[in-house]
């Protein structure tokens, strides 16, 4: 019986190449990131006319989108082995969990 490892690298090789962004795709991603940054900066100047909660919300959403676009495309996490993703996400989740506890401990949100 032929083992799967005899075939998998070849299949994955083609598959990997097919999904790896080209230079032009990298440029397009960078343009999208630049546009998102421009929107963020534009939102900053709306401080006087828009409620702070909406600014916080909008800026946070844009920040998260930019963060994951760089991680997924420029850092190739979308195309690389899932193990790297798991390691990075583990660090990220641990950090978010630890500092969420930190904020609650210091009553940052004014709930106490």
């Amino acid at each position, binding site marked *: 019986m032929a083992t799967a*490892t005899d075939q998998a*690298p070849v299949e994955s090789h083609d598959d990997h190449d097919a999904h790896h962004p080209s230079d032009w795709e990298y440029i397009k991603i960078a343009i999208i990131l630049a546009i998102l940054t421009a929107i963020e900066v534009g939102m900053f100047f709306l401080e006087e006319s828009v409620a702070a909660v909406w*600014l916080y919300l909008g*800026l946070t959403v*844009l920040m998260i989108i*930019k963060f994951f676009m760089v991680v997924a495309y420029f850092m190739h996490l979308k195309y690389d082995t899932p193990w*790297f993703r798991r390691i990075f996400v583990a660090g990220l989740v641990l950090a*978010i969990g630890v500092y969420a506890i930190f904020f609650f401990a*210091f009553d940052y949100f004014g709930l106490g």
Partner: protein
Amino acid sequence: MTGATTPMAPPLRTKELPLAEATAVAEHEAPETETHDGDHGDGDDHGHGSTTGISNNKLMMWVFLGSECLLFGALISTYMLYKERNEDFAANLAPFSEDGRNIGPRFGGADGHGVFDIPFTSASSFILLCSSLTMVLALSAIQRSDYYRFKIWTAATAALGATFIAGQIYEFTEFYEKGLGYSTNIFGSAFYTLTGFHGVHVSIGILMLVALLIMHRQGRLNSDKSETVEIVGLYWHFVDIVWILIFTIVYLFPQ
């Protein structure tokens, strides 16, 4: 010793092993031109020879970046808390006792209000964003053995990083002249610690990029060793994503 007494490792079967996909990708990462001449002793194992089938060097970098999330998480959280406390306690606590002794952390005084120059910092952010693009283009170039473009994009990345650092030094000088020093209040301490740590990371990244150019000049970096560029690239992009967070949380969130 006979073969009958020596335990043999069973052959890998993709469906039973979760790392099989990783093995497949790692196999791909080895360039087609690789000679498999045993030249894996200098750190570019590309996953060959590792028990997981994953490149140990890349794995190490991802573990490092995962731990860096905790470092910058601590710095960003401290900044957010101290910024809040600086405003809350400004009217209630004096930094010095009557005889002039420092009795604790300082509150109030200069902070982000009227100090930050958003258009300037936006330009710096755009420069760092561009450096991420040039970094990924440098990796793409060396992977297809286009060494001329590799050198150009790597040098451009280092130059953009240096421009960002120059902007940060200028910005810090301006803030200091406007009354926001490191020990002015807890806001200043948290702000300079956070952005300073990021600046140090960018500076280390620039040194790594220069090292790549030197290695290439010495003939120790070619398409077979492109993983080295990829690992430096991972570090550089991480520095970029940290700035994405800092720029929004520190500069753009309503004061």
